[in-house]
Every structure is written in C-alpha cells, then in structure tokens.
C-alpha cells in the first residue's frame, strides 16, 4: 500500500510529460505558462490563508475548548465515549495540524491500537479541514456568498464522526 502511494506521483508526472511529448505540444513552454498561473493562484489565496490562520490560532490558543469539554467529562464517561476524542472531533474541520497534534497526544497516552487511538485514526482519515478548505477555495475565486456550503460540509463531518464511532466499535 505504501509503495503504491509512493509510486503514484512519479508515474503520474512521467505519464503526463510523455503524453504531452507524444502529442507534440510545446511541453516546456506549456509548463511555464501553467506555473505562472499557479503563481497567480497563490497570490490570490494568500490573504484567505493568512486570515484563517490568524482567527483559528487566536481561538485555539485561548484554550476555550479544553475548558468547555472538561465540564462534560462525567457525562461522556457514562455513555462510554472517551473524552479525549472530543476536542479532536471539534478541531478537525478547522485545522489539520491541530487535530494531528491531538491525535499524536492520544497515541502517546493511549497507544495507536487502543479504542480511542483507532477512533482518532479513523476520524483523521475520514474527514477534512472543511472550514479551512472552504475559506481557501472560495477565497481563491473571490466568492463571498457561500450559500449552504459550510453547513452541508459540517453536517457531513458530523455524520463522519458518528459513523467512525459506530464502525470502530463494530469492527474491532
């Protein structure tokens, strides 16, 4: 599995370049043209990334989540849900690095093969940083009316979290 995912990028590049070569297009000039467009894209998404990192950092570093969730501990123990997973589930749509850091903590404290370790792995694998992605993608084409995109994305995340919990329970 690992070897396959390591081979994908080199093979992909090889295939694309070879295909362009065979179709007799100016591959080098075309590459430069695309790279220039890429540079413009980065230029456009830079403010959106900066704005989101700024807001998310302030929010996460206030430690409001840890304090909020610690009050729920007794309740979650009663329904047999490990409390450590909560901040991770909440942070997952906001920041990939932050949720990865929490998962790292969970692995260090409980081990990757514990119930909460497996649940954290599944969570990290099955959803994405919805809020960050929306800010980035819509920001790149200057769209500010996002309609029902965010709530639908977060709904899917919520279902993913619930499904992870049930599936990990059933399979292991």
């Amino acid at each position, binding site marked *: 599995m690992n070897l396959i*995912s390591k081979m994908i990028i080199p093979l992909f590049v090889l295939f694309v370049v070879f295909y*362009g070569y065979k179709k007799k297009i100016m591959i080098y000039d075309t590459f430069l043209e695309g790279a220039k467009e890429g540079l413009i*894209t980065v230029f456009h998404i830079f403010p959106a*990334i900066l704005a989101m990192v700024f807001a998310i950092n302030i929010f996460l*570093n206030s430690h409001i989540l840890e304090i909020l969730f610690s009050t729920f501990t007794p309740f979650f123990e009663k329904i047999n849900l490990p409390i450590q997973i909560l901040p991770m589930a909440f942070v997952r749509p906001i920041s990939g690095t932050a949720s990865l850091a929490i998962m790292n903590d969970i692995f260090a404290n409980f081990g990757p093969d514990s119930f909460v370790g497996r649940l954290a792995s599944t969570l990290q*694998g099955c959803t994405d940083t919805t809020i960050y992605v929306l800010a980035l*993608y819509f920001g790149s084409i200057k769209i500010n*009316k996002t309609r*029902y995109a965010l709530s639908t994305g977060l709904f899917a995340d919520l*279902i993913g979290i619930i499904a992870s919990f049930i599936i990990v329970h059933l399979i292991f």
Partner: protein
Amino acid sequence: MINKLWGFFIIVGILFTLFMGNIESLNDTILTSATNGVEMVLDLLPIIVLWSGIMKIAEKSGLLYKVGNLVKPLLHKLFPSLKKDSKALGYITSNIVANAMGLGSAATPFGLKAMEEMQKENEKKEEASDAMITFLVLNTSGVTIVPTTVIALRMMYHSANPEEIIITAILATICSSIAGLTLDYFRRRKNR
C-alpha cells in the same frame, strides 16, 4: 457564513483569553499568526506552481479532457449544472483521485483549478454555484482511501497493524460523503 465564523473565532478567542488573564500569550498569538500564515503559503507555493505547470501539459495535450470523459457519466449525475465538455470535470476527477490516495497537498492545485473553471461557468460571480458546493462537500467529506499521514504516525507509535484503520476510514468516509451529497441534493432542489 465564513464572515460570521471568522468574527466568532476572533471575538470569542480574544475575550476568553482576556477573561483567563493570558494577555501575554494573546500578544504572542497575534504576532506569530501572520508568520504562521506565511509559512503555510510558502509550503504550498512550490507545490501549487509545480503542479499547475504539469497540469497545464495535461490540459493542452487533451489528457485532462480524456480523464474527465472516463468518469463523465458519474460526474454528470453529481454535477448536472456543469457544461458537458467542461474542463472543470477533469480537474475535479484529478482532485478526488489525489485526495483519495492521501496526497492532500498535490490535490489542492487541482481543486483550485476546478474552482476557477467552475467560476467561468458561474452566472453570479459573487455567489457560490451549485456545482462548487457539491464539489466542496465531496472534497471535504474526504474521500481518502490511503490516509498516509495517519498510517505514518501509527507506525511511529509502534502500532501492531498500522494499516488496519484504512477499512474503518473508508467506511466512515462513505457514510459522510453519502450524507453530505444527499443533503446537498435536497438543498439544491429546494433553492430552485
């Protein structure tokens, strides 16, 4: 919605930090956030520039169009509002495939290109189109088949079977994707 959320993060974050009396750390956070943002962009910059170049070759040679054609019947059902020969279809496919293989950073340039192409077909340039929302729901519910980072981290902590979570992640992804697409479908219809 993003406007409100952005304000919420900043206002709640600052007020709560002040309430807890961590003025010192608040200053740090505000000042270092800009640097973090720049670092993030610098991480993305070479990847996006490089892949935009490679993908331009795929586009000009007609490869992208061919790949888009391959999955067209399925994509047309998901994105009925896009034109039949839309370039966006090829980029959407590339983005989903790269994401599925756990190559998140390689997927981003494809996704951005897909948005750009969809924006060309968008009638209200300020507003998200139906196709964009469907794409983002599909993208963020994460069709990950090989979560590479997670597996690497599990190996680091000596998991007995680091890959065992692939199957649970796929099953959970299927659930969240179906839930997201279903909700998207009904809201799209309600909006007409």
